Protein backbone atom coordinates (compact mmCIF):
# COMPACT_ATOMS: atom_id res chain seq x y z
CA UNK A 1 0.00 0.00 0.00
CA UNK A 2 2.16 2.85 -1.27
CA UNK A 3 0.87 6.25 -0.20
CA UNK A 4 1.76 9.44 -2.06
CA UNK A 5 3.68 10.94 0.83
CA UNK A 6 6.14 8.06 0.57
CA UNK A 7 7.08 8.33 -3.04
CA UNK A 8 10.59 9.70 -2.77
CA UNK A 9 14.07 8.12 -2.90
CA UNK A 10 14.91 8.31 0.81
CA UNK A 11 11.72 6.50 1.74
CA UNK A 12 12.47 3.79 -0.80
CA UNK A 13 16.00 3.50 0.59
CA UNK A 14 14.51 3.00 4.06
CA UNK A 15 12.14 0.29 2.81
CA UNK A 16 14.88 -1.47 0.83
CA UNK A 17 17.04 -1.53 3.95
CA UNK A 18 14.21 -2.91 6.06
CA UNK A 19 13.15 -5.61 3.62
CA UNK A 20 16.69 -6.76 2.82
CA UNK A 21 17.49 -6.89 6.54
CA UNK A 22 14.36 -8.90 7.29
CA UNK A 23 15.07 -11.35 4.48
CA UNK A 24 18.66 -11.80 5.67
CA UNK A 25 17.75 -12.41 9.29
CA UNK A 26 15.18 -15.01 8.23
CA UNK A 27 17.69 -16.70 5.92
CA UNK A 28 20.48 -16.89 8.50
CA UNK A 29 19.13 -19.81 10.58
CA UNK A 30 18.86 -21.92 7.41
CA UNK A 31 22.41 -20.97 6.48
CA UNK A 32 23.67 -21.88 9.95
CA UNK A 33 21.75 -25.13 9.90
CA UNK A 34 23.37 -26.27 6.66
CA UNK A 35 26.86 -25.41 7.89
CA UNK A 36 26.12 -27.18 11.16
CA UNK A 37 25.51 -30.35 9.19
CA UNK A 38 29.26 -30.66 8.76
CA UNK A 39 29.41 -31.41 12.46
CA UNK A 40 26.85 -34.18 12.56
CA UNK A 41 26.17 -35.44 9.09
CA UNK A 42 28.98 -35.02 6.60
CA UNK A 43 27.08 -36.88 3.87
CA UNK A 44 24.12 -34.52 4.13
CA UNK A 45 26.49 -31.55 4.04
CA UNK A 46 28.16 -32.83 0.87
CA UNK A 47 24.76 -33.56 -0.56
CA UNK A 48 23.79 -29.96 0.02
CA UNK A 49 26.95 -28.69 -1.61
CA UNK A 50 26.12 -30.70 -4.75
CA UNK A 51 22.60 -29.30 -4.59
CA UNK A 52 24.07 -25.81 -4.23
CA UNK A 53 25.79 -26.03 -7.60
CA UNK A 54 22.41 -26.25 -9.31
CA UNK A 55 21.82 -23.14 -11.46
CA UNK A 56 18.55 -22.30 -9.71
CA UNK A 57 20.22 -22.38 -6.33
CA UNK A 58 22.98 -20.23 -7.78
CA UNK A 59 20.35 -17.72 -8.78
CA UNK A 60 18.93 -17.74 -5.26
CA UNK A 61 22.45 -17.17 -3.95
CA UNK A 62 22.80 -14.25 -6.29
CA UNK A 63 19.65 -12.88 -4.71
CA UNK A 64 21.12 -13.28 -1.24
CA UNK A 65 24.33 -11.53 -2.13
CA UNK A 66 22.26 -8.82 -3.74
CA UNK A 67 20.27 -8.38 -0.51
CA UNK A 68 23.49 -8.32 1.46
CA UNK A 69 24.95 -5.69 -0.85
CA UNK A 70 21.82 -3.54 -0.56
CA UNK A 71 21.84 -3.86 3.19
CA UNK A 72 25.53 -3.20 3.73
CA UNK A 73 25.72 -0.20 1.44
CA UNK A 74 22.42 1.13 2.72
CA UNK A 75 23.89 0.72 6.18
CA UNK A 76 27.07 2.55 5.21
CA UNK A 77 24.89 5.36 3.93
CA UNK A 78 23.09 5.52 7.28
CA UNK A 79 26.32 5.47 9.27
CA UNK A 80 27.71 8.24 7.10
CA UNK A 81 24.58 10.34 7.50
CA UNK A 82 24.40 9.86 11.22
CA UNK A 83 28.02 9.99 12.28
CA UNK A 84 29.61 12.35 9.80
CA UNK A 85 28.45 15.94 9.92
CA UNK A 86 26.85 15.85 6.55
CA UNK A 87 25.49 18.38 4.17
CA UNK A 88 25.78 16.52 0.90
CA UNK A 89 22.61 15.68 -0.99
CA UNK A 90 21.49 12.35 0.35
CA UNK A 91 19.62 11.39 -2.74
CA UNK A 92 22.87 11.05 -4.62
CA UNK A 93 24.15 8.79 -1.86
CA UNK A 94 21.00 6.70 -1.90
CA UNK A 95 21.28 6.27 -5.66
CA UNK A 96 24.97 5.42 -5.41
CA UNK A 97 24.09 2.76 -2.86
CA UNK A 98 21.92 0.91 -5.32
CA UNK A 99 24.47 1.34 -8.10
CA UNK A 100 27.30 -0.13 -6.06
CA UNK A 101 25.05 -2.96 -4.89
CA UNK A 102 24.33 -3.85 -8.48
CA UNK A 103 27.98 -3.69 -9.38
CA UNK A 104 29.09 -5.91 -6.53
CA UNK A 105 26.44 -8.55 -6.92
CA UNK A 106 26.89 -8.47 -10.68
CA UNK A 107 30.57 -9.18 -10.27
CA UNK A 108 29.77 -12.05 -7.97
CA UNK A 109 27.24 -13.44 -10.40
CA UNK A 110 29.64 -13.30 -13.32
CA UNK A 111 32.38 -14.95 -11.29
CA UNK A 112 30.12 -17.68 -10.04
CA UNK A 113 28.49 -18.76 -13.28
Amino acid sequence: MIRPHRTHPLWYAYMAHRLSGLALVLFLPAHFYVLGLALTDMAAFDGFMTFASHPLVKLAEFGLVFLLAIHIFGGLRLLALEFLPWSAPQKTLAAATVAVAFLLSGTFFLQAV
Partner: protein
Amino acid sequence: MEAAENTLEVSVWRGGEDGEYQTFQVPAQENQTILDVVSWIQQYADPTLTYRFACRVGMCGSCAMMVNGKPRWTCRTHVKKATEGADKIEIAPLRNLPVIKDLAADMDPFFDKWVKAGAVHHPTRTRDDAIETITPDEPGRVEAAKAIECINCSVCYAGCDTVANNPDYLGPAALQRAWTLYNDAKDADRQAILDNVSGVGGCHNCHTQGSCTMYCPNELDPLSAIAGLKRVTAQNFFKRKG
Protein backbone atom coordinates in the same frame (compact mmCIF):
# COMPACT_ATOMS: atom_id res chain seq x y z
CA MET B 1 -23.35 22.89 -12.33
CA GLU B 2 -20.87 24.88 -14.38
CA ALA B 3 -18.80 23.47 -17.19
CA ALA B 4 -16.17 21.01 -16.01
CA GLU B 5 -13.18 23.23 -16.80
CA ASN B 6 -14.52 25.95 -14.52
CA THR B 7 -15.12 23.74 -11.54
CA LEU B 8 -12.94 21.65 -9.31
CA GLU B 9 -14.05 18.30 -8.02
CA VAL B 10 -13.11 18.35 -4.36
CA SER B 11 -13.48 15.43 -1.93
CA VAL B 12 -13.43 16.53 1.66
CA TRP B 13 -13.26 14.36 4.75
CA ARG B 14 -16.43 14.62 6.86
CA GLY B 15 -16.98 13.34 10.38
CA GLY B 16 -14.55 11.78 12.85
CA GLU B 17 -12.18 8.81 12.57
CA ASP B 18 -14.88 6.71 10.90
CA GLY B 19 -16.14 9.44 8.61
CA GLU B 20 -16.08 9.46 4.82
CA TYR B 21 -15.34 11.72 1.89
CA GLN B 22 -17.97 14.10 0.57
CA THR B 23 -17.58 15.57 -2.89
CA PHE B 24 -18.17 19.23 -3.74
CA GLN B 25 -17.99 21.17 -7.00
CA VAL B 26 -16.02 24.35 -6.36
CA PRO B 27 -15.58 27.20 -8.87
CA ALA B 28 -12.03 27.21 -10.21
CA GLN B 29 -9.99 30.41 -10.08
CA GLU B 30 -6.74 31.31 -11.74
CA ASN B 31 -5.18 32.03 -8.34
CA GLN B 32 -6.51 29.77 -5.64
CA THR B 33 -5.06 28.08 -2.59
CA ILE B 34 -6.36 24.89 -1.01
CA LEU B 35 -7.51 26.97 1.95
CA ASP B 36 -9.53 29.15 -0.48
CA VAL B 37 -11.22 26.00 -1.74
CA VAL B 38 -12.05 24.79 1.75
CA SER B 39 -13.31 28.25 2.76
CA TRP B 40 -15.50 28.43 -0.35
CA ILE B 41 -17.14 25.13 0.60
CA GLN B 42 -17.73 26.32 4.15
CA GLN B 43 -19.12 29.68 3.03
CA TYR B 44 -21.22 28.66 0.03
CA ALA B 45 -21.92 24.93 0.18
CA ASP B 46 -21.96 23.65 3.75
CA PRO B 47 -21.48 25.99 6.72
CA THR B 48 -21.05 23.01 9.07
CA LEU B 49 -17.65 22.14 7.59
CA THR B 50 -15.04 22.30 10.34
CA TYR B 51 -11.45 23.33 9.66
CA ARG B 52 -8.77 25.48 11.19
CA PHE B 53 -6.79 28.49 10.03
CA ALA B 54 -5.74 31.87 11.35
CA CYS B 55 -3.06 33.92 9.66
CA ARG B 56 -3.51 32.90 5.99
CA VAL B 57 0.09 33.84 5.30
CA GLY B 58 2.05 30.82 6.50
CA MET B 59 2.99 32.04 9.94
CA CYS B 60 0.66 30.49 12.48
CA GLY B 61 0.87 26.83 11.47
CA SER B 62 -2.80 26.04 12.03
CA CYS B 63 -4.03 25.24 8.52
CA ALA B 64 -2.14 22.05 7.66
CA MET B 65 -4.10 19.20 6.05
CA MET B 66 -3.49 16.18 3.85
CA VAL B 67 -3.99 17.21 0.23
CA ASN B 68 -4.00 14.40 -2.31
CA GLY B 69 -2.14 12.26 0.20
CA LYS B 70 0.58 14.76 1.08
CA PRO B 71 0.81 17.00 4.15
CA ARG B 72 0.57 20.67 3.14
CA TRP B 73 0.11 24.10 4.69
CA THR B 74 -3.09 24.85 2.86
CA CYS B 75 -3.03 28.65 3.04
CA ARG B 76 0.11 28.76 0.93
CA THR B 77 -0.42 25.75 -1.28
CA HIS B 78 -1.77 26.53 -4.70
CA VAL B 79 -4.39 24.22 -6.12
CA LYS B 80 -2.18 23.70 -9.17
CA LYS B 81 0.77 22.67 -7.02
CA ALA B 82 -1.25 20.31 -4.87
CA THR B 83 -3.03 18.49 -7.66
CA GLU B 84 0.20 17.79 -9.57
CA GLY B 85 -1.78 17.33 -12.75
CA ALA B 86 -4.57 15.24 -11.23
CA ASP B 87 -8.11 16.44 -11.99
CA LYS B 88 -9.34 15.78 -8.46
CA ILE B 89 -8.54 17.24 -5.07
CA GLU B 90 -8.82 15.13 -1.96
CA ILE B 91 -8.53 16.95 1.35
CA ALA B 92 -8.25 15.12 4.66
CA PRO B 93 -7.29 16.03 8.22
CA LEU B 94 -3.59 15.73 9.12
CA ARG B 95 -2.32 12.18 9.33
CA ASN B 96 -0.96 10.58 12.54
CA LEU B 97 -3.27 12.64 14.74
CA PRO B 98 -6.78 11.91 16.06
CA VAL B 99 -9.57 13.49 14.02
CA ILE B 100 -11.83 15.88 15.91
CA LYS B 101 -14.25 16.59 13.08
CA ASP B 102 -13.94 17.04 9.33
CA LEU B 103 -10.60 18.71 8.59
CA ALA B 104 -9.69 19.55 12.18
CA ALA B 105 -7.15 17.17 13.67
CA ASP B 106 -6.48 17.02 17.39
CA MET B 107 -3.02 18.55 17.78
CA ASP B 108 -2.62 17.55 21.45
CA PRO B 109 -0.36 14.49 20.90
CA PHE B 110 1.91 16.63 18.73
CA PHE B 111 2.32 19.30 21.38
CA ASP B 112 2.47 16.80 24.24
CA LYS B 113 5.50 15.25 22.58
CA TRP B 114 6.97 18.69 22.12
CA VAL B 115 6.89 18.99 25.91
CA LYS B 116 8.07 15.40 26.38
CA ALA B 117 11.13 16.07 24.24
CA GLY B 118 12.05 18.44 27.05
CA ALA B 119 12.78 21.36 24.83
CA VAL B 120 12.86 23.72 27.77
CA HIS B 121 15.52 26.35 28.17
CA HIS B 122 17.85 25.93 31.16
CA PRO B 123 19.16 29.42 31.89
CA THR B 124 22.80 30.17 32.68
CA ARG B 125 22.09 33.57 34.19
CA THR B 126 19.42 35.30 36.23
CA ARG B 127 17.40 38.33 35.20
CA ASP B 128 19.83 40.51 37.14
CA ASP B 129 22.78 39.57 34.95
CA ALA B 130 23.59 41.21 31.67
CA ILE B 131 22.47 39.33 28.56
CA GLU B 132 25.16 37.09 27.15
CA THR B 133 26.40 38.18 23.75
CA ILE B 134 26.15 35.63 20.98
CA THR B 135 27.66 36.56 17.64
CA PRO B 136 25.63 35.48 14.62
CA ASP B 137 28.44 33.46 13.09
CA GLU B 138 29.18 31.21 16.08
CA PRO B 139 28.83 27.58 14.91
CA GLY B 140 26.20 26.75 17.54
CA ARG B 141 24.20 29.82 16.64
CA VAL B 142 24.43 29.00 12.93
CA GLU B 143 23.13 25.50 13.64
CA ALA B 144 20.33 26.79 15.88
CA ALA B 145 19.32 29.40 13.32
CA LYS B 146 18.44 26.69 10.82
CA ALA B 147 15.33 25.66 12.72
CA ILE B 148 13.98 28.76 14.45
CA GLU B 149 11.44 29.36 11.69
CA CYS B 150 9.42 26.29 12.71
CA ILE B 151 5.72 27.21 12.88
CA ASN B 152 4.55 24.00 14.65
CA CYS B 153 2.26 23.10 11.77
CA SER B 154 2.78 19.34 12.22
CA VAL B 155 3.32 18.74 8.50
CA CYS B 156 6.54 16.81 9.26
CA TYR B 157 4.76 14.82 11.96
CA ALA B 158 1.99 13.88 9.52
CA GLY B 159 4.45 12.85 6.82
CA CYS B 160 6.57 10.57 9.02
CA ASP B 161 5.96 6.81 8.87
CA THR B 162 8.02 6.23 12.00
CA VAL B 163 5.49 8.36 13.86
CA ALA B 164 2.73 6.30 12.26
CA ASN B 165 4.29 2.98 13.28
CA ASN B 166 5.72 3.85 16.67
CA PRO B 167 3.29 5.73 18.94
CA ASP B 168 6.06 6.67 21.40
CA TYR B 169 8.24 8.37 18.81
CA LEU B 170 8.59 12.07 19.56
CA GLY B 171 8.62 13.04 15.91
CA PRO B 172 10.65 15.43 13.75
CA ALA B 173 9.44 18.80 15.03
CA ALA B 174 9.97 18.14 18.74
CA LEU B 175 13.39 16.58 18.11
CA GLN B 176 14.45 19.43 15.89
CA ARG B 177 13.49 21.82 18.65
CA ALA B 178 15.63 19.85 21.09
CA TRP B 179 18.56 20.07 18.67
CA THR B 180 18.10 23.84 18.38
CA LEU B 181 18.18 24.26 22.15
CA TYR B 182 21.16 21.93 22.42
CA ASN B 183 23.07 24.30 20.16
CA ASP B 184 22.19 27.29 22.30
CA ALA B 185 25.34 28.44 24.08
CA LYS B 186 23.13 30.00 26.74
CA ASP B 187 21.71 26.67 27.84
CA ALA B 188 23.10 25.48 31.17
CA ASP B 189 22.08 21.82 31.02
CA ARG B 190 22.64 20.39 27.58
CA GLN B 191 23.01 16.89 28.95
CA ALA B 192 19.40 17.06 30.16
CA ILE B 193 18.32 17.75 26.59
CA LEU B 194 20.30 14.77 25.31
CA ASP B 195 18.89 12.50 28.03
CA ASN B 196 15.38 13.55 27.09
CA VAL B 197 15.83 12.50 23.47
CA SER B 198 17.63 9.23 24.30
CA GLY B 199 14.69 7.31 25.75
CA VAL B 200 12.27 4.81 24.27
CA GLY B 201 10.61 7.30 21.90
CA GLY B 202 13.74 9.33 21.25
CA CYS B 203 15.79 10.37 18.24
CA HIS B 204 17.32 6.91 17.83
CA ASN B 205 14.05 5.56 16.44
CA CYS B 206 14.34 7.72 13.32
CA HIS B 207 14.83 5.65 10.18
CA THR B 208 16.01 8.53 7.98
CA GLN B 209 12.95 8.37 5.74
CA GLY B 210 13.34 12.09 5.19
CA SER B 211 9.67 12.93 4.59
CA CYS B 212 9.97 15.63 7.28
CA THR B 213 12.61 17.55 5.38
CA MET B 214 10.86 16.84 2.10
CA TYR B 215 7.50 18.31 3.15
CA CYS B 216 8.48 21.05 5.63
CA PRO B 217 6.74 24.11 4.17
CA ASN B 218 9.43 26.41 5.58
CA GLU B 219 12.13 24.26 4.02
CA LEU B 220 13.66 23.38 7.37
CA ASP B 221 15.64 20.18 7.76
CA PRO B 222 14.51 18.10 10.76
CA LEU B 223 16.25 15.07 9.29
CA SER B 224 19.66 16.70 9.72
CA ALA B 225 18.72 17.96 13.17
CA ILE B 226 17.85 14.41 14.26
CA ALA B 227 21.09 13.13 12.73
CA GLY B 228 22.86 15.79 14.81
CA LEU B 229 21.20 14.50 17.99
CA LYS B 230 22.18 10.93 17.10
CA ARG B 231 25.77 11.99 16.51
CA VAL B 232 26.12 13.93 19.74
CA THR B 233 24.40 11.30 21.90
CA ALA B 234 26.62 8.60 20.39
CA GLN B 235 29.76 10.62 21.14
CA ASN B 236 28.54 11.22 24.68
CA PHE B 237 27.79 7.54 25.11
CA PHE B 238 31.52 6.80 25.09
CA LYS B 239 32.52 9.88 27.05
CA ARG B 240 30.19 9.00 29.88
CA LYS B 241 31.27 5.37 29.92
CA GLY B 242 34.96 6.24 29.77
